[in-house]
């Protein structure tokens, strides 16, 4: 398995963000990048482990993307760089990914970043979108044109010989438990819904905007909307992400087509008219 390192991330980020590598280095959180890459390496049980198949490749790529989303080595353009790095990682290991439709891929990325979707679950969506291509043995061998002082390549070689971190038993167990939990979830079809307003527009929920003020900012409005939903019979309604996506996990047991849900939604849309929450049903989110 070919893994990415910090230098790879710098080049990927520079191209993705359309800036120089020097600029990326100036704004990148190296510590966070190292943490993300180390976390991604935990997926690999030992040095040189090969990706065994499509599902394995999908999960490995998604683990990397999630690690980059969580550790945020790039404060800006973090999602773009994470996805670009995941795609590049897959390519380096002989897999071509086609993340289409793009609108669904956005939901997957959001869900991965917010923790609503595990890499195992997202791999169900990604696996069919991977195509095996001829593996290019990409080893970053120092070239004479580098102009690197002699001792430094030696340091690099030594660094690359450091064995990958072993997965602690507890982490391995946690991974298995996560996998088992995810295996019961069929992730199909994205359904971003925003219910229509009811004509009678009762202001019954006006007093239940909760802790969040509906008018302060779009973010506050979104949070107030979630509070409203929670106080209108949907106690497990998720708080939306920073970009306004509320992902309803299957385990939450929320029926988006129920009368109770639709009534609450109608009320809360009126209570928080500036909210722009997009509700995504994770149980049907990934089949498109």
């Amino acid at each position, binding site marked *: 398995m070919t893994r990415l390192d910090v230098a790879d991330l710098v080049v990927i980020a520079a191209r993705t963000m359309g800036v120089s590598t020097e600029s990326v*280095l100036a704004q990148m959180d190296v*510590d966070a990048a190292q943490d993300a890459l180390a976390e991604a390496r935990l997926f690999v049980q030992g040095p040189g482990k090969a990706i065994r198949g499509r599902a394995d490749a999908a999960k490995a790529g998604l683990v990397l993307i999630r690690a980059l989303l969580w550790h945020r080595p790039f404060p800006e353009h973090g999602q773009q760089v994470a996805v670009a790095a995941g795609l590049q990682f897959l390519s380096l290991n002989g897999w071509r990914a086609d993340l289409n439709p*793009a609108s669904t891929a956005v939901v997957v990325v959001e869900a991965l970043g917010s923790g609503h979707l595990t890499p195992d679950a997202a791999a169900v969506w990604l696996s069919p979108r991977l195509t095996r291509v001829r593996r290019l043995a990409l080893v970053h061998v120092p070239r004479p044109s580098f102009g690197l002082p002699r001792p430094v390549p030696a340091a690099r070689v030594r660094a690359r010989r450091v064995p990958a971190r072993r997965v602690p038993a507890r982490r391995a167990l946690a991974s298995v438990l996560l996998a088992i939990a995810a295996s019961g979830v069929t992730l199909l079809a994205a359904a971003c819904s925003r219910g229509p307003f009811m004509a009678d527009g009762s202001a019954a929920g006006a007093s239940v905007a909760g802790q969040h003020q509906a008018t302060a900012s779009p973010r506050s409005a979104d949070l107030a909307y979630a509070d409203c939903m929670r106080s209108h019979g949907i106690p497990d309604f998720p708080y939306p992400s920073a970009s306004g996506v509320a992902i309803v996990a299957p385990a939450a047991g929320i029926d988006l087509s129920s009368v109770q849900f639709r009534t609450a939604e109608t009320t809360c849309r009126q209570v928080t008219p500036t909210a722009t929450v997009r509700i995504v049903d994770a149980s049907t989110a990934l089949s498109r």
Partner: protein
Amino acid sequence: MSSLNEAGKVRTKNMVLRLDPDLADLLATVAEVEGRSVSDVAREAIAALVEGRRKDKRFRRMLEDNLARHQRLLDLLQDEQT
């Protein structure tokens, strides 16, 4: 933390690097032998490493292909973050 030059542009940036102890020792040795600071050697090594990736044609070709095929997705992600 970054320092600025006269033009107000970022000149250097403080970074924390976690290094394998052996590697750290090697870095210190190289710096001492060459009469340079550890930071200077590390900076040059990082720059050379990045430059090496930047010139790697296969790496770049794959990257360009991936970015081109997923331009719409990347645009949407950009919108999501703004």
